[in-house]
């Protein structure tokens, strides 16, 4: 008979402070020593973590109504344009939007970081006057306390695997995969490997719509599957995708987040982005979930892509695994290429550990997905028709 546990049984143990929780890194030697069945019996939850650049992020803000009221349509926060085409005092501030004064160094991500850090932010807004909204402009300062809601709502985060990048060309390239030195001078990669949330639940059995998560230091949720969710990506025999695959749309209360796990960043010659910390708990419902969560870096493969070819479909220079990438050096066609991460494994560990403590303390319970993520989606290119 196989081991089988329900969410209710696991939550009961969490509530009593008796749940056995380990990180996705700690479970690997446990399975090697005790076997899958024993670990399935003993462990209730495995925690994951990642902290990397998550460009497709932003915040919905509601500023509250002034007197006389205004229907804001053009909005700037510290000179960063926010989208005002939703109701009167709602806005969406995208992380990668650049400031109109210094867009190369400061953007929406920095405004979000400033808000989380308790700083005052300069709000300017204009709108057409209407009978119900007679005011046409406001100019002043707000902070996270003074506004009604600040909801971090990210259309695409936590990529399930991602390509590694290198550069065959003769010049340094500054990309969202960092600075790539000429003539295969380096290679960069950006997932936390064996700690990465969706790599520990490759078939989306437990991570789905409504899954509670750690986001930016607080509890949030998986809102939907993410944009460019590519669940049809090629997979290895272990079910793990070998390139960019599933994605998640995430939601959380910005007012509860902290700067330890949310940091504004700039990639040179690319622009602003945000480093966001996310952790997802995975219930050990049965032995299959032990097999999934005990995935090792050497079991996770990705493609090394040549950014020296500046097209949508870039050539693949090699197929590599995360044990090789994390060693600091890979070999491609007999050539040694130094490797470096872009997502913080140090922080990923910290997040998985913190989430583990929340569950152990009984302050974070689990629930099954309201709906599972689609397993048959793929990504379309831009299809432009002549008008």
């Amino acid at each position, binding site marked *: 008979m196989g081991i089988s546990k329900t969410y209710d049984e696991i939550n009961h143990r969490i509530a009593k402070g008796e749940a056995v929780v380990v990180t996705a890194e700690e479970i690997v030697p446990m399975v090697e020593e005790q076997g899958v069945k024993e670990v399935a019996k003993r462990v209730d939850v495995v925690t994951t973590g990642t902290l990397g650049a998550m460009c497709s992020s932003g915040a919905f803000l509601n500023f509250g109504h002034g007197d006389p009221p205004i229907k804001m349509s053009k909005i700037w926060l510290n000179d960063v344009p926010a989208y005002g085409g939703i109701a009167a005092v709602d806005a969406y501030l995208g992380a990668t939007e650049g400031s109109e004064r210094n867009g190369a160094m400061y953007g929406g991500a920095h405004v979000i970081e400033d808000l989380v850090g308790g700083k005052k932010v300069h709000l300017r807004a204009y709108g057409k006057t209407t009978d119900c909204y007679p005011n046409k402009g406001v100019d002043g300062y707000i902070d996270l306390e003074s506004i009604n809601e600040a909801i971090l709502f990210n259309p695409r985060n936590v990529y399930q695997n991602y390509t590694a990048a290198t550069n065959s060309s003769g010049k340094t390239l500054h990309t969202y995969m*960092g600075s790539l030195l000429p003539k295969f001078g380096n290679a*960069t990669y950006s997932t936390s490997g064996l700690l990465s949330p969706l790599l520990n639940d490759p078939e989306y059995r437990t991570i789905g719509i409504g899954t509670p998560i750690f986001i930016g230091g607080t509890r949030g949720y998986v809102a939907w599957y993410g944009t460019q969710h590519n669940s049809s990506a090629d997979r290895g025999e272990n079910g793990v995708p070998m390139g960019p695959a599933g994605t998640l749309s995430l939601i959380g209360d910005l007012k509860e987040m902290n700067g330890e796990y949310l*940091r504004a960043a*700039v990639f040179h010659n690319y622009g602003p982005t945000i*480093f966001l910390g996310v952790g997802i708990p995975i219930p050990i419902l049965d032995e299959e979930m032990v097999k999934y969560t005990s995935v090792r870096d050497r079991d996770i493969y990705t493609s090394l892509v040549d950014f020296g070819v500046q097209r949508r479909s870039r050539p693949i220079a090699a197929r590599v695994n995360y044990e090789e990438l994390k060693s600091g050096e890979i070999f491609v066609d007999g050539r040694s290429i130094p*490797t470096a991460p*872009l997502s*913080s494994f140090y922080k990923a560990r910290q997040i998985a550990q913190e989430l583990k403590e929340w569950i152990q303390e009984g302050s974070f319970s689990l629930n099954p997905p309201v709906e599972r993520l689609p397993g048959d989606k793929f990504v379309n290119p831009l299809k432009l028709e002549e008008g």
Partner: protein
Amino acid sequence: MKKLRFILEFPPECSDKPLTYHLVKDYDIKINILRGTISAGKEGKLLVEFEALEENLEGGRKFLESEGIRLVPIDRQVVLEKEKCIHCGACTAVCFTGALILSQTDWQLLFEPDKCVACQLCVEACPLNLITVSF
């Protein structure tokens, strides 16, 4: 034999003197110039590695100081705001000398000034803009 790496800061009046000649001939110092910005009549900087017997290194150092040249340890010229660092590793991607590396055990960023050549590639590579290099 001992190795020392530092930046020599030349005031304008020293930038046309054959100082390396004296260091080699008088103090038997093996000099490796790693990086330099200097031209006659202007102030300049030279990143150097000296290799010699300890007493010769000391003699060479005193000679340079008597000529009005400042010897600045490289770790004073590279400032990393470590308390704000998230240890993402982006700077290590461009650090071809291995001065910036991630620990393979706790994955925190380590800086080894002795390997730094002040190339400044890390300045642009750090997504959090935490590194400044004065050269």
